[in-house]
């Protein structure tokens, strides 16, 4: 009897030890449970990968337009290049939240879209040469923000801008820097896209457990982080002076382009909401998502319909932001209250997403012991 007891105890300890490992997978979800793997599949196959592929095409167009402009630096090629840049920039808004896998490993977002950029350093890079764009300290001297400066900010007129690439004493150096920045963005994009279309897709989908390192936990944390830091704060809050005593109209996205900040904001807001609803990229079809997961849990919990509240709040933020001018920088200077109003609506969803949703999904922020009090 005693021996049996000890055997029993020993087995339980082993079971506990095994199941506490951090990479438990669930390949066989029961039929009537919520299928997390299907959720991850929908995100990977219908949202992230198509969005990345589309972004890669835009990057290819940008690269072509850049080489055309570098070959023949005239105003017509500048206009074409600028269009390709803006198209890619809008497309970027659909992938920037997926800072997971290779993107996380190479700090994709920080090399692609830090703003404001430091123009004095960019100028220094151009004239001195010998820069290393791989360096973390050079994140604010490259990416979409640097292109914004190089294509829109060098002079007031297109003639003036083209002059930097044609008649300026450093024209060749300007061309080189422009090409290098685009080349690096393209290289990084290729790395991330190749990873998704290669092995990463399966490892992402199969990591369907519930530990802090599972795909869903990480992705939800990434989604929240992006919403809070990059959409709410980066695009609206920081320029509107929410976190400071003064406003910073020069800290808007695409500051030099002037009329693009709203389009970029809207694209990102929509991408985040579509992600929440599991809407397929470039289609109206929807699949398993945070929304359907919340709805499933809600049938157990019988509390208020959280996914509707979240969607309503997304819509309210979009409506409030529709009052803003195309150029957020001008809006900050002339009527910052509208910016603050938009911020307020965005802020309300932080509460729904970060408090109510996270709690409902029982997703942890960190791996530490906690006994729930």
């Amino acid at each position, binding site marked *: *009897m005693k021996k049996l*007891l000890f055997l*029993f*105890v020993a087995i*339980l*300890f082993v*079971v*506990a030890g*095994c*199941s*506490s490992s951090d990479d*438990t*997978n*669930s390949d066989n*979800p*029961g039929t*009537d*449970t*919520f299928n*997390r793997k299907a959720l991850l599949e929908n995100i990977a196959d219908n949202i992230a990968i198509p969005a990345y592929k589309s972004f890669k095409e835009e990057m290819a167009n940008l690269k072509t337009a850049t080489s055309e402009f570098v070959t023949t630096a005239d105003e017509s090629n500048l206009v074409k290049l600028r269009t390709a840049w803006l198209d890619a920039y809008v497309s970027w808004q659909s992938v920037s939240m997926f800072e997971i896998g290779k993107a996380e490993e190479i700090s994709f977002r920080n090399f692609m879209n830090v703003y404001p950029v430091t123009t004095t350093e960019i100028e220094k890079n151009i004239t001195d040469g010998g820069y290393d764009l791989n360096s973390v300290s050079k994140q604010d001297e490259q990416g979409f923000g640097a292109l914004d400066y190089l294509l829109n900010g060098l002079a007031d007129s297109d003639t003036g801008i083209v002059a930097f690439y044609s008649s300026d004493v450093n024209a060749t150096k300007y061309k080189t820097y422009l090409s290098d920045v685009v080349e690096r963005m393209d290289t990084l994009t290729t790395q991330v896209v190749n990873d998704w279309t290669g092995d990463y897709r399966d490892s992402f989908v199969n990591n*369907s*457990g*519930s530990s802090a390192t599972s795909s869903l936990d990480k992705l939800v944390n990434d989604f929240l982080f992006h919403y809070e830091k990059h959409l709410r*704060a980066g695009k609206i*809050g920081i320029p509107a*002076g*929410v*976190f*400071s*005593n003064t406003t910073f109209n020069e800290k808007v996205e695409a500051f030099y382009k002037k009329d693009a900040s709203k389009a970029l904001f809207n694209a990102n807001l929509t991408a985040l909401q579509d992600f929440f609803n599991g809407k397929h990229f470039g289609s109206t079809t929807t699949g398993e998502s945070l929304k359907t997961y919340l709805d499933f*849990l809600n049938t*157990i*919990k019988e*509390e*208020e319909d*959280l996914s509707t*509240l979240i969607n309503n709040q997304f819509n309210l933020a979009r409506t409030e932001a529709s009052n803003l001018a195309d150029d957020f920088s001008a809006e900050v200077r002339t009527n910052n209250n509208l910016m603050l109003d938009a911020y307020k609506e965005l*802020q309300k969803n*932080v*509460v*729904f997403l*970060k*408090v*109510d949703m*996270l*709690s*409902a*999904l*029982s*997703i*942890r*922020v*960190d*791996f*530490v*012991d*906690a*006994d*729930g*009090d």
Partner: protein
Amino acid sequence: MSTKYFEKNTEAAPLAVFRIFFGIMMSMSIIRFWSYGWIDKLYIQPKFFFTYYGFEWVKPLGVYTYVIFAVCGISAIFVALGYKYRIAILIFFLSFTYIELMDKTTYLNHYYFISLMSFLMIFLPANAYYSIDAWRKGVSYQYIPKWTIDVVKLLLGIVYFYAGLAKLNSDWLVKAMPLKIWLPSKYDIPIIGDIMHHEWVHYLFSYTGAIYDLTIPFLLLYRKTRGIAFILVVVFHILTRILFPIGMFPYIMIVSTLLFFSDNFHHRVLAGISKIFKISKNHFDTNQVFSYSSIQKKILISLVSLFFVIQLLLPFRYLLYPGELFWTEEGFRFSWRVMLIEKAGYANFKIIDSVSGSRFYIDNDDFLTAFQQKQMATQPDFILQYAHYLKQHFKKQGHKNIQVFVESYVTLNGRLSDQYIDPSIDLVKEKESFKHKTWITPFKDEIKGL
């Protein structure tokens, strides 16, 4: 209890076994904590630490924090060996408690339990038998006063029973909350993962948990139910270990409950250890009885009695506060309310210059770790302390007329999030105390029960 009870003696073996396991478990806890890099992450990396009221002077000591952990771990080994036991357990108690007081972000009921247990052990003759002390002094006592073992059982019993009492509320019993939130997220555990979303499972776990906590101390006390009780202890704690991130606690409790087993059982454990390490167990089996002088005994018994009176009353201090305990958390800690509520929050701090009216919001990432933010957002005393810290920080930066307001939202056991702190209150003007915090927004729902 009659004075006769305090005259009774019993075998010292159970307490010796308990001492050995306790020491080993504690040193393992320290090693585990260290190996996860948590000393650095929790006590060195953060810029700011949440102190306990009255213990504001207890703070991490930079890299020397490792020394405290080392001291704590080594003293635990000394306790296990029973070498210089009295000083070792004292040092263990002090260093362990110091660690726990450094930042209340990491508060865990089981850490509090360890502090209490090690405090109690300072006064117990746990080294009288089967210890290096007993070996070296050449005096081993095979028998010790019965009450010195019973107090350990009593403390264990209180932990369970009070944890059970805390579950007797409408959220736990009527709504099966928070297990209804927690269990479905455990879909990926082996065998039982697939049933975790069924409502009946949530209720089953809620009720079994409550009944288990309330009855297990009694089942362990009686010889006839002891065997089954121990199986229950193992199953229950292993389950909690699988389901929840509670670290070493389940193992510590399993090992502790061995104390309830017979003297014979403990002698066999010690015989086993003796065999492995080639120790002569006979050397300790002296038939000698350990006894206190009558003055010692009087002091010890009054002290330990006082300790238990406090233990029995402290968890009920919440009755002195108005409002819902789970919402305000006034009187929540140090009360064996373990894995009882699912709470999450968000606190957005606003700094205002009361003269110029200029204002800005705080990015909490600039000051707190993710873990600290999580704990801070749902507990008023954290919110208040952080607000004062922010004031000091911006005062140093040259800001003037600083007011600190907070817009905060909390969800409790699946209810839709609601405003937590009165957003019109300048927190700089509020002081920490044991008094009720009037600036907590009242709870809109009702939770019935204890």
